[in-house]
């Protein structure tokens, strides 16, 4: 077990390292001159501006060989310094520190909503198998899987504003400044982000619940006269949830992708919105910094799920 944990953690680093190399190379070999694009230089710009660009390039260290640049970047990261953004006066660290809480809150909320809604509906579908209620809920989950999250977000905004004449407060308010206003702002994007994870885990809950309900120990529980509620919740659900928990890592990956869309759509100042802005303004140090942070988070959660798995399911033993 210990050997497994150590090996698993050792494998975590190479994956992150591969990501950093690929990301770095991609952003460096890209056609076009980063600094030139950044300054908005044209082919026929006056030589003075070109000199200026060279100066900035030297200042940012972009004129050095790529392996040296990479080594420098990684060495800084080891010391927890993500480098400087191209826009003046902002270090990537500062941006991440400022924007991370918003994305984290959005992620936690959407995962919470997804699981709170999906597990009961999964159980419901399983215990009402092959009834109309089961069919309707199943169709709903299928539609949920097929609907683009950004469209769900747009429709939520439309329904709220047209039918109820209500819009979330515009300027973003921090959680600790006014929790209620913050909640009103976060709940809708969180709901939209969670749609596909919700539909997915409801379907998994249903199928694993159906499997568990056919087991002998459930019949035993019924035979000894346990209340139906106890059979379902204490005996069946506990085991049925194992695959659902395994999918947590996947859900986190989904939410990370969703945050880029939802933060842009709802104007939340989070990491995803900043990432898209960095891409559009060609702020590559910021792009690689945020991408690395997002990747680190997702990989970390996946690692955690893997390590916790034997605790959740004692039948699983790693060797």
């Amino acid at each position, binding site marked *: 077990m210990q050997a497994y944990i150590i090996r698993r953690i050792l*494998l975590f680093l*190479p*994956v992150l390292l*591969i*990501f950093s190399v690929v*990301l770095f190379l*991609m*952003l460096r070999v*890209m*056609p076009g001159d980063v600094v030139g694009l950044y300054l908005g230089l044209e082919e026929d710009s006056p030589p003075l501006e070109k000199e200026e660009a060279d100066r900035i390039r030297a200042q940012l260290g972009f004129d050095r060989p790529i392996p040296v640049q990479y080594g420098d970047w990684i060495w800084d990261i080891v010391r927890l310094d993500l480098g400087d953004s191209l826009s003046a006066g902002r270090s990537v660290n500062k941006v991440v520190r400022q924007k991370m809480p918003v994305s984290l809150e959005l992620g936690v909320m959407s995962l919470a909503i997804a699981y709170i809604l999906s597990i009961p509906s999964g159980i419901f579908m399983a215990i009402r198998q092959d009834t109309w209620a089961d069919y309707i809920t199943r169709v709903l989950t*299928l*539609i949920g*899987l*097929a*609907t*683009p*999250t*950004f*469209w769900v977000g*747009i*429709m939520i*905004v*439309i329904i709220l*504003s*047209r039918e109820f004449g209500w819009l979330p407060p515009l300027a973003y308010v921090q959680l600790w400044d006014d929790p209620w206003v913050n909640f009103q702002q976060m709940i809708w994007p969180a709901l939209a982000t969670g749609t596909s994870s919700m539909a997915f885990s409801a379907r998994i809950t249903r199928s694993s619940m159906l499997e568990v309900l056919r087991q002998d120990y459930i019949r035993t529980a019924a035979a000894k006269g346990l209340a139906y509620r106890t059979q379902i919740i204490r005996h069946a659900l506990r085991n049925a949830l194992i695959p659902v928990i395994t999918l947590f*890592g996947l859900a986190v*990956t*989904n939410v*990370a*992708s*969703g945050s*880029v*869309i939802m933060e*842009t*759509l709802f104007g939340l100042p989070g990491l995803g919105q900043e*990432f*898209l802005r960095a*891409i*559009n303004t*060609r702020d590559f140090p910021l*792009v690689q910094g945020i*991408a690395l942070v*997002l*990747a680190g988070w*997702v*990989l970390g959660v*996946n690692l955690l799920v893997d390590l916790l798995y034997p605790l959740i399911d004692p039948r699983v033993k790693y060797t």
Partner: protein
Amino acid sequence: MATVTDTITAQKIGTAVGGYLWGVVTGLVSFGRKKPLGGISLLFLVGLVTVAVFADQIAQDPFHFDRPARLAGPSWDHWLGADSFGRDTFSRLVVGSRIALIVSFSSVGFGAGVGTFIGLTSGYFGGKFDLIVQRFVDFLIAMPGLVVALVLVAVLGRSLMNVIFAVAVLSIPGTARIVRALALSLNQTEFIMAARAVGASTPRILLRHFFPQVIPLVLIAASGGLGGAILAEASLSFLGLGPAPPTPTWGAMLSGSAIQFIDESIWIVVFPGVALTLTVLFVNLLGDALRDVLDPRLRT
């Protein structure tokens, strides 16, 4: 004399082709009987492909500005209304279906091809090669897909080919993993050992012995990934990093200007979303049906 044999051969070929086509038709009918939902989905998809192929005949000019019809709701002139420039929504949806289908099919095809190659070689050779390749696969599986695709399109530039490539990268790891697992177990089977024993070359073993075995699983993985590919393209377009404008795409129809005008007309955002959802829904249903029919593990 020669002409007589020619006609006879032609007739033979004719009946052979006819028989083959008839076989395809009866196969599809029995698929539809066994899996009604799959059959309906297949019909929908065939219909959509037809619409995409004949888009120029079906649609009016998707770039024509009909000023008086700005933000109009559905009407006889504009079946599904018009956008903020007075462009016909129905026509733009019809033309946009091309992008959705081209991107999803070619990226999934490309991704499945590369994934199969990676999975086969990784599972067949094993050892250090497998270990290193699998780290790349791990990495691709664990990455948030949209983040990777956004970086790729940003770096390569906005074009149809680059969007296809970016979406294709997302569908490589799933196929690679499934194929590798099967290749690992095939390594232990007697017919592969026999092939090795008689001295078949590695490419021959991989192509003639492994490949036919993994086709069903690759088809399942590919059809399962099709819906995700459509959504990925739509998300990229929505975020402004899809195929370059003015090409109408379903995702781009929902972005930017569309959201500004929702107070005046909800139709401009309703219909593209419905088109996307319906298409992905039917593609997913078809994938499920295919899996039920093809997956040897589910066969009873």
